[in-house]
């Protein structure tokens, strides 16, 4: 086996994909080739060193990891509260919707109907008697087929 073939086998061995017979063959090559043996040692050590590195980090944070449920439970509670609270967007979403409706009403109200928009110039006003000391109710009636408008005027 030459070094090029050995290097390919070293990679496959690291992936756990090298058949047993090929591994024996590779091992024989490594015994007589320090360069390939160094390559094999380094590549097969990557996993060990990586696990050792994360093991150190895990030990450092072991107490915090032990208390993880406390943190998670608190986080779940906070998220639950946030879900109950209407979001900023939801709280103010009616404003653009109302503006859009108003614009549409202004633009399209006269269109699609042969009826001219209602602009009261003269008021045929009938003031109703109401049992209230704080408001006056006025009925504006422009005739048949037109909507009756009810004005509620708060007394000063």
């Amino acid at each position: 086996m030459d070094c090029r073939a050995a290097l390919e086998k070293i990679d496959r061995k690291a992936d756990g994909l090298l058949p047993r017979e090929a591994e024996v063959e590779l091992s024989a090559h490594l015994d007589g080739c320090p360069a390939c043996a160094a390559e094999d040692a380094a590549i097969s050590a990557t996993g060990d060193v990586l696990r050792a590195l994360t093991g150190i980090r895990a030990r450092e944070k072991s107490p915090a990891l032990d208390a993880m449920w406390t943190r998670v439970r608190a986080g779940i509670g906070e998220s639950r509260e946030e879900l109950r609270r209407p979001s900023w967007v939801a709280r103010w979403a009616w404003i653009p919707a109302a503006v859009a409706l108003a614009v549409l009403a202004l633009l399209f109200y006269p269109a699609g109907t042969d009826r001219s928009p209602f602009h009261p110039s003269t008021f045929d006003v009938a003031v109703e008697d109401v049992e209230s000391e704080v408001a006056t109710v006025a009925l504006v009636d422009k005739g048949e087929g037109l909507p009756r408008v009810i004005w509620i005027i708060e007394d000063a």
Partner: protein
Amino acid sequence: MNEREKGGVPDDALIRATLAGDDGAFAELMERYKGRAFAVAVGIVGNGDDALDIVQDSFIKAYYKLKEFRFGSNFYTWFYRLLVNQAIDRWRKSARSAEVPFDESWLSEDASPPDAFAYPRTPEDLLRDRELGDALQRALDALPEYHRAVIVLREVDGMAYDEIAKVLGCSVGTVMSRLHYARAKLKESLKAHREG
């Protein structure tokens, strides 16, 4: 059955109990996977505090998304997808530069000195060769995030290629090529450190 479930309540049963309102069942589920989750997160972001936040946020997210879990599939594959995405997002957002120093208090007196040719195999051995640990961390940091995720899932968590592919949403072939690339880069850093 997952190996973590042996002798215990299956993951699926804990998920059903959680969905029925039993938070204690979710706590048990979390206890099963928090260690592995931390190892994966810290392998990707390289910082213990960030990794703790990632694990916490991932479990909170999992709690609220649990109703989307498809019974019959692996909980940990499903959960790791959340975890790895959180870790990668965190990595992208953070301008990471500070290395976490090794804590020498973990050094035990009876730890064996490093052999001239052998590489550290345990945390204690690695602590005796701090420069090697730093070199490996730098090599990890230099990897693209999905390559880092692949090698961490494979080498630290021991996941199979097809499971990694499910977690990362890519093909097994992509997993293998990323793994090959990542391993080669880490190997270069180990060799360079040893030879330099």
